[in-house]
């Protein structure tokens, strides 16, 4: 009896095993990048580009890829159409880069974001970016040094690749977190397509609809210092023969929002920069006195730059640093705090205090 039942169960398990829909790796096309642009046609708003990796014939022969584009009414339809153009199954499990065209991002990204979050096979750790002039061009850039398709676009965003003070990196889940949150605006790096290279040195700020503002290179660097702090950055101080470049190994800021009953609310900003002199234009040896002067004038300049960035964001009513969320998280009147903050933010004062210390003058005085 017992043996009979066991045998039946084993047979039943074998029955379960057939009809498995798994596809081999050589029957799959790996989508390494998704690009979404605005299309010119009224009834087909999405121009979807998929970057497909083609495996090299021999290992180390360099990256080959193919970009296929479709214009449709829904993203799903575009992907279905692209599927009928290729011989293998599309696999989104390796998608590492999602590029939104600049024109597209300015209009309305809500549907695309919803689609990206809804698809279970798209990694939440895929990098998001805005493509200039459009996403398709960015996906089509082929850097000569590239060994794995899309790697040149992935590495700058990772900790392992280049470290630049102008690069902001955002993963899909981070973007969604900020996008959904009350009190912080989402940001995305802007990637410019060049001839065989990318330029990533700006950050775009988005509200609930789409791209509202693209910061300049200098502002992006300042934004990075304020938002996350930088471990490696170059900071310019002074002009003409007084100009020096600081190689900072620490540049960070912390802030607190003060709102009393009898005073205008303000944000206290403390910035801290530590570094050494890397380049100077005066061609004289740097003395202790000069070093002190650089520290002082430098602090003033940094304060001015930070203030101008903060007021610029405030005037546009954008809050990528998350003052609103900080305000919400430090106040207990949960029902009213958000309305309160929306009144406070346009009138907020910023008090920036920068502190620069130059540790040394480098190998020479």
């Amino acid at each position: 009896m017992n043996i009979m039942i066991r045998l039946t169960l084993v047979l039943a398990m074998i029955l379960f095993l057939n009809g498995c829909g798994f596809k081999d790796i050589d029957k799959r096309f790996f989508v390494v990048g998704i690009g979404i642009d605005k299309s010119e046609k009224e009834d087909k708003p999405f121009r979807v580009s998929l970057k497909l990796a083609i495996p090299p014939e021999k290992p180390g022969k360099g990256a080959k890829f193919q970009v296929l584009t479709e214009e449709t009414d829904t993203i799903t339809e575009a992907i279905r159409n692209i599927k009928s153009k290729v011989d293998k199954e599309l696999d989104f499990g390796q998608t590492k880069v999602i590029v939104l065209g600049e024109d597209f991002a300015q209009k309305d990204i809500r549907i695309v974001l919803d689609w990206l979050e809804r698809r279970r096979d798209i990694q939440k750790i895929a990098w998001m970016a805005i493509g200039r002039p459009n996403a398709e061009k960015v996906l089509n850039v082929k850097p000569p040094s590239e060994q794995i398709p899309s790697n040149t676009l992935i590495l700058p965003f990772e900790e392992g690749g280049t470290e630049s003070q102008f690069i902001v990196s955002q993963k899909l889940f981070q973007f969604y977190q900020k996008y959904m949150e009350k009190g912080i605006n989402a940001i995305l790096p802007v990637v410019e397509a060049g001839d065989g290279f990318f330029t990533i040195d700006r950050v775009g700020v988005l509200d609930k609809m789409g791209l509202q503002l693209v910061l300049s290179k200098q502002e992006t660097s300042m934004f990075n210092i304020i938002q996350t702090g930088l471990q490696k950055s170059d900071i310019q101080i002074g002009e003409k023969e007084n100009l020096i470049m600081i190689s900072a190994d620490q540049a960070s800021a912390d802030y607190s929002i003060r709102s009393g009953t009898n005073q205008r609310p303000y944000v206290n900003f403390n910035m801290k920069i530590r570094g050494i002199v890397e380049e100077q234009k005066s061609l004289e040896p740097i003395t202790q006195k000069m070093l002190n002067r650089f520290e002082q004038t430098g602090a003033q300049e940094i304060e001015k730059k930070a203030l101008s960035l903060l007021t610029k964001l405030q005037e546009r009513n954008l809050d990528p640093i998350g003052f609103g969320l900080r305000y919400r998280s430090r106040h207990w009147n949960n029902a009213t705090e958000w309305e309160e903050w929306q009144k406070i933010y346009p009138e907020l004062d910023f008090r920036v205090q920068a502190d620069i210390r130059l540790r040394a003058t480098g190998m020479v005085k």
Partner: protein
Amino acid sequence: MGKNRYLYYLVFLNMLVNVVVFVPEILIRDRFNGALMSVFIAVPISTALLFWFGKSLVQFPKQGLPEIFGRYLPKWLSIGLLLFFAAMWFLTGMILLLDYTKITKDFISPDVSKVTLIGLFLVLVCLAARLKSSTLLHATEILLLLTAPIILFILGKSVMNEDMSWDAIFEIGTNVLQTPTVDSLAAATFVFTGYTNMIIFHRVFGNEFRFRHLGIIASFGFLILLTSFLIPVGFHGTYGANRYTFPWVATADSMRIEMFVVERVVFLFILIYTIIVLVAAIIHWHISLELFKSVFSGGSGEKKSFRVTWIVLIMFAAVTMVLEIYLNGYQIFNAGSLWLKIRFFGELLLVTILVYAARRKKRA
């Protein structure tokens, strides 16, 4: 060497599976309406229940619930209650399997039909649930010791993650002064309920068995609750977290391991949780099976007991399979949150009756 340590594995197992039985989903849904307060209240309530349960149970060395009920309750009440608790434990295992099949289907093998998946799970769970209680305890120990380091790694990685928004977590913190809801209280207390599995497993513990280190269980459960509730909020924000159907799967998918064979933590997470969920389902169905057996084949021969075992297990499998085929994600969630509430009141009932039985024994 005492066997006391097995109690902690049972408790720890239920703490870990909270992620799969909608506890974080419910807490996150009520995040502005008293979820955090429920967490704070759940700790003393559960510790008190655990204390009374333990104190009463050790009065009956080497006995399970059927033996205790049989001696101190009228027969009709005893049978009714045993059937009720058997159904509760069956439902726990069923909800675990239903929900986890959905997760596996979505993330590991979208090409395999859900009937195949749950079929394989059911075969494994039903075959293992028949084993001896002591065998199951030993297996639980080994599997938990194997998986615990990886779970600690994932937890550590999430807490230390730079992309966590601590401001979002503090914002939830400022919502602490809200009236707790029944839903979130029932969800929060689930984390501590591993001890109730002793109603059957107590049979294999020795005379010297005692409930000890309640403080450690309470504080550990509290930490697990906070992490399973607040880490998804830190990753996805106070509003974003509520948009996910499986907050913890989304959270695991938001982490990456830079230097490892696979980059997506979600695969590691699902692999580990497959083990934990299956072990938990086996444990719960084993208890349910033993309770059913005590009602339908109490004291009778080997042959009848064998028949009851298979009838009950086939019923378990059939019900689970049918529900898996007909229920969608929302329906499973609603069933799960209703089950959590009934389970909470069932737990209160269980402890009350045990305390009553222990007092009768003392008086007698």
